[in-house]
């Protein structure tokens, strides 16, 4: 199983040499549903994969399905509405738990209470994430089991077409964009990536192939400021949280904030993906419990709140 995570491709394009490095021949399946209504503007993307690209058109398929199948549209709208409500509650709980960690860390402790208080506050933060992830999983299962989904012939046809195209492809390329829309279309079209199919993904695409999908933006003008778990990813690369545009989106100078971010996900490596980044997960590069091993030379966010290079002494 080969998965390669790249940095953003807008100014530093590395997808073409990366694809060539795989040594594969044949069609390359493309997912750029995160571009939403610009999905069809894929000329540059097709050129970047040496003209071998076959766009799976997941966004367009979703739009067609939802406009034609009233029951399916109802199920999807209901899912979105429930997910939005869940996110709203999660946001309230998360921000409080996140703020509490910093409040505890900054409080003077004269009798050694502080360390335990911080551990407990961090655990409370993880508990909020776990609760949310559990509820999301429940919601996904619930929607998937609705008759609107299971009995939609049009949906079944589209899913079969996508699976067929994937099966005939030599590689899969997943571009960035709106990660929420990307995940929604991947799930609606039941995209399942065969283990032997090499995958190249960047930005939102990189987030989608890992698990969980964690949203972050330290400089967004408003809203929940803490990084948020949004969804389960495809789980192709387990134990890794990609951080696209880390330099632009993360307050990397704020070591305390970065340290708490890293400590919040102790079973994961937080991997910044800036322009030019190439992080390759090859066959067999996983631990016994299935977690991907971040290759030497890649950078990760340490629990000290700094970026460190894996394998550097």
């Amino acid at each position: 199983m080969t998965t390669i995570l790249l940095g953003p491709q807008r100014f530093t394009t590395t997808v073409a040499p990366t694809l060539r490095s795989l040594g594969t021949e044949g069609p390359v399946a493309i997912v750029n549903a995160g571009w939403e209504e610009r999905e069809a503007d894929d000329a540059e993307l097709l050129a970047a994969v040496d003209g071998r690209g076959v766009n799976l058109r997941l966004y367009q398929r979703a739009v067609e399905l939802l406009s034609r199948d009233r029951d399916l549209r109802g199920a999807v709208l209901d899912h979105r509405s429930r997910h939005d409500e869940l996110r709203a509650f999660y946001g309230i709980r998360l921000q409080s738990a996140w703020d509490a960690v910093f409040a505890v860390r900054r409080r003077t402790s004269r009798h050694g209470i502080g360390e335990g208080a911080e551990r407990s506050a961090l655990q409370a933060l993880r508990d909020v994430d776990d609760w949310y992830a559990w509820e999301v999983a429940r919601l996904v299962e619930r929607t998937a089991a609705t008759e609107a989904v299971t009995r939609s012939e049009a949906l079944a046809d589209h899913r079969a077409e996508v699976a067929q195209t994937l099966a005939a492809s030599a590689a899969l390329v997943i571009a960035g964009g709106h990660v929420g829309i990307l995940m929604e279309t991947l799930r609606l079209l039941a995209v399942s990536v065969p283990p032997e199919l090499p995958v190249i993904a960047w930005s939102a695409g990189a987030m989608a192939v890992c698990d969980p999908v964690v949203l972050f933006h330290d400089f967004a003008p408003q809203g929940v400021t803490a990084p948020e778990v949004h969804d389960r990813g495809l789980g192709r690369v387990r134990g890794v949280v990609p951080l696209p545009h880390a330099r632009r989106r993360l307050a990397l100078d704020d070591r305390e904030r970065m340290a708490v971010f890293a400590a919040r996900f102790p079973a994961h490596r937080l991997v910044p993906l800036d322009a030019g980044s190439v992080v390759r997960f090859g066959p067999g590069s996983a631990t016994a419990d299935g977690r991907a091993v971040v290759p030497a030379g890649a950078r990760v966010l340490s629990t000290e709140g700094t970026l460190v290079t894996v394998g550097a002494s």
Partner: protein
Amino acid sequence: MTTTPVSRLAINRLRERLPLDGPTIDRFVARYGSPLIEGERATFLYRGAVDEVWVRHRVVGLPDPLPLKRIGDSDLWSVTTVLPEGSRVEYQVEIRKGEQYERFNDPLNPRLAHSPMGSSSVCAAIGYRAPDWVAFDPEAREGTLVEEHVRSRALRRDQPVQIYLPARFNHAQRYPLLIVHDGTDYLEFAAMKTVLDNLIHRLDVDPLVAVFVPPRDRLKEYPNHAPHARFIARELVPLLTERLPLADTPEARCLMGSSFGGIAALSTAVRYPGLFGSLMLQSASLVFTDIGFDHGGGPAFDPVVKFVNRFREKPRAVVDRIYMTCGVYEPLITPNRSMVPVFRHTGMKVRYTESRDGHNWENWRDRLGDGLSWLFPGPQKFVYE
């Protein structure tokens, strides 16, 4: 209008060259215009054969009228006043020739602001810059404005409204609803369609549906008027919810307004608690009295003061969140500041910002970015290109 570093004021350097001849004044006026901004000083100029000249403004803390003095025996008049960094002031010039008084925009200043009352000259201090999202951005996808008439039993008339649908409006999405009092003025004088297009395009604000509602008899309908509140809550909201893909929850409904429109927003929320999740109050006319009823605002403010006094007697949470703004140069600054703790005490979350500006549409326009992105945070966290 010119910005120069602070040293000796240009007008004082000119005074040292008395007596002034016409060409010298011509060159000075052509070079600097009016007002001259030098550090935190603003010098207003007027040129003409008049008996008296004043700057007329509504800046609390500065004398109004602000008299200009003739420079020597020339026809050039000036006055210098303090103007802190980031300030923005609207003003006019008043002159007297014998028994004739006349008031107009500053002929030496091309910069104007517009409002339903007409136009005014604008003096922007050092450090003031209009936000870049107030100007048309050709890259921003445009939403659409749909004009409609809503038959209102509460108001006993057909009420015109303009409905803003965001770019890429899609019935498979659910949108929050923003109801804007003085809607036509917000569109015309605060560029609100352009602002919404830009803020949504930049992912600062969630795509939303806005309905712009103009009043017919503003002074009657806006200060706590039951038929107006009934129209908004019982007629407009249900109609829009039925026809448009709106997120049908209080959290996704916001009322906004400025000045008396702020009172209309607040009083509607008070009459229908729990129906709306948030308010955006800009320089709301929150005038009250602590003893007696001598509020000094004239008869138009009587129902406002009654309403605000009653609310202060028994404050209660009627929405979850309030975004409040007020200019520090307007008379309403003290009532607005005073109401912040009253609102907060009820448990409502209040974000309050002040600006060095007055009671005008450009002030309210400039605050829209902060307010709307707080009330409707955009999807920036979702997009990783």
